[in-house]
């Protein structure tokens, strides 16, 4: 190999080097030119809908910034149910832009609606082709009908072209999105609902038949574990389910208190403990697994561990991840006191707060 190299003359090596560098430069420039020719996204694009209620007739303001300085003769605005240009464009249900008029324009101006291409979901703005600047442009369209329904997402696929009819190679492209949202939601019908109740015993799925509005630990002494239980019921037709948090304090009597268990711990006689769980326990024998057809409602760890108790105010004890039918949870309470526990009437307030998800 070295011998071969030695056989090459120096000018030959130089010529080969120059040729290689020239080839790289030429290909690089060509690649750069082709890359610049590619379309890029519009900048600062957005849409304002004056009334976003589903089915409303209103005005839209579409704003954008032309990214590529080029001769633009048309701006194509296609209203679809998805933003991806390679996918079929389906008209969002209820949307109608066929009566739209171009009421105002700023930035890149001189446009008019191309009547020949105006459809239920397509507006082509046309003008005598001219060079674009980098100012923010906005176009206001009157007589636009929103898609039906609330929380209906829809998209405007936007492309700019040198041609005056929205055809041919595109210069810039991009999508804007909007959602129909009720501006003021007047409650005229039964909306999603969250049913929630807490009692010692709940006998039905409607929270109408509840028994025993108190639970009693009885007299406490150090040589015994005291237990009691209550029931929690929840159901919802809300899309995002619910969560149940437990709040309150440990048992107190004036300045005296029984310590709350802050990490999952077994019940020990003679040790100051106050804790709860929502599990089916064997030691002590109390509690039950959740019942009812709302099987997507579950107790959250660590409150689901049998024979381990704790109490931290604000903890989430159960959640569901969507529409949840009836679900009944059994909350078990455990209290132990040490020999030197100060006498007194110990009490607490436990509130279960049920909140929808988002």
């Amino acid at each position, binding site marked *: 190999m070295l011998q071969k190299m030695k056989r090459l003359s120096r000018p030959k090596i130089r010529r080969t080097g120059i040729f290689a560098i020239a080839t790289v430069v030429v290909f690089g420039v060509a690649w750069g030119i082709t890359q610049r020719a590619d379309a890029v996204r519009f900048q600062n694009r957005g849409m304002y809908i004056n009334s976003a209620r589903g089915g409303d007739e209103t005005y839209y303001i579409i704003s954008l910034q032309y990214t590529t300085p080029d001769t633009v003769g048309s701006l194509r605005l296609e209203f679809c149910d998805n933003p991806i240009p390679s996918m079929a464009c389906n008209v969002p249900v209820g949307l109608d832009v066929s009566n739209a008029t171009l009421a105002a324009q700023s930035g890149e101006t001189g446009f008019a609606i191309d009547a020949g291409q105006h459809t239920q979901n397509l507006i082509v703005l046309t003008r005598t082709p001219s060079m674009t600047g980098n100012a923010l442009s906005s176009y206001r369209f009157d007589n636009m009908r929103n898609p039906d329904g609330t929380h209906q997402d829809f998209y405007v696929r936007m492309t700019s072209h040198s041609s005056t009819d929205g055809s041919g190679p595109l210069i810039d492209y991009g999508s804007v*999105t909007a959602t129909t949202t009720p501006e003021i939601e007047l409650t005229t019908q039964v909306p999603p609902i969250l049913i929630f109740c807490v009692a010692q015993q709940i006998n039905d799925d409607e929270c109408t038949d509840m028994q025993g509005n108190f639970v009693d630990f009885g007299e406490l002494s150090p040589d015994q574990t005291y237990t009691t239980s209550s029931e929690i019921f929840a159901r919802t037709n809300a899309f995002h389910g619910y969560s149940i948090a437990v709040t309150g304090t440990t048992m107190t009597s004036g300045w005296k208190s029984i310590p709350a268990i802050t990490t999952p711990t077994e019940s020990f006689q003679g040790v100051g403990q106050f804790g709860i769980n929502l599990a089916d326990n064997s030691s002590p024998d109390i509690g039950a697994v959740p019942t009812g057809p709302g099987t997507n409602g579950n107790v959250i760890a660590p409150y689901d561990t049998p024979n381990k108790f704790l109490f931290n105010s604000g903890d989430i004890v159960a959640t569901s991840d969507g529409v949840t039918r009836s679900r009944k949870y059994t909350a078990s309470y455990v209290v132990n006191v040490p020999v030197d526990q100060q006498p007194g009437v*110990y*009490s607490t307030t436990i509130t279960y707060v049920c909140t929808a998800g988002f």
Partner: protein
Amino acid sequence: MYNTASVNNQKWRDMKKVFQLVAVLSLFVATGFLGAHTNAQSTGLGVNPRKDLTVYPGKSASDQLYISNLNKSLPAKVSLNIVDFKSSGETGTPALQLKEDAPQTPWSLKPFITLPKTVDLAPGESKYIPFSVRIPEGQGAGSYYSAIKYDPQPGEGSETVVISGAPSQLLFVTVPGKATELMNLKKFGAYSIKEGQENGSFKSLWVSKQPDRLAYLLQNAGNVAESPSGSIQIKNILGKQVKFIKNANPRENLALIDQTRRFEVCLETQTKEVEQDGRKNKVETCKEAGLLPGIYKANMSLFYGINGSNTQEINATATIWYMPWWFIGVILLILAAIAFAIFKIRQKLIGTTSHKRKNKR
């Protein structure tokens, strides 16, 4: 004397009994405690779980809250409290700020909302409670939210220890305009999660089963609770589309301000019938999309932006390797067969060459 002594003895016995009783009572007080008697009004309430409003700066919106006393035999007095909330982890579980000294969140609705403090409900009665939200002129665009907690007040004669149930309602208000909207994509890919678990894991390589869902993590660094929309295209190694997910956020989940939220989307959905307590229940779950072994690219285009603000776009690609064990086995067998064939051919060639050399010699 005897009688007197007898009387004295009797008195002493009586006093002894009294002393004994006092001693027993003292012991009882010293070692025992009066029971923690838990008492509460049995509360059953029905409320709207969530309400979304759009209010322009300088304007107000009036609406109604729905509340129903489900208890058919007892009246209920319910106090309405506004509680701020944050996100709790990657999911849509709110963390209510229930401590009395909890600082007000920057997105709190407390300064803007007017509603009654208490509501009285007869047994079984439902009511619509009027309330209003007023956004002052000049208030910045964005999302404002709090929860309304319905606290049933204990009835007369109830004990000091109460167990109660308080449902709460989320209230979101969007103030349109130019808001600060910024979502950062943290992760995107095929996602594995066990039923009932809060969090799972992102996986690129799938061997024991094929993926049934995709997920992405978005960090909300703006001042708008965002619900992105968009689509996901899945292509095979040849660039052919094998799956198109039209709605990348089918549950319309929200990423709260400051939250890193996980959004999940099924490749395919199925409705399962689950029997529980003798009742049949329909549950919608993700199912495998029938992918063939291979390498796939998932291309996601997400959009977000409130009305009047710029539309923001997030594009991401994830690679999914679906290589089931049987497929790896088949590949290994094929490779072994090729290696064996090469070995055999080589042996034959070597044999032939050495034979020729021997013949030449």
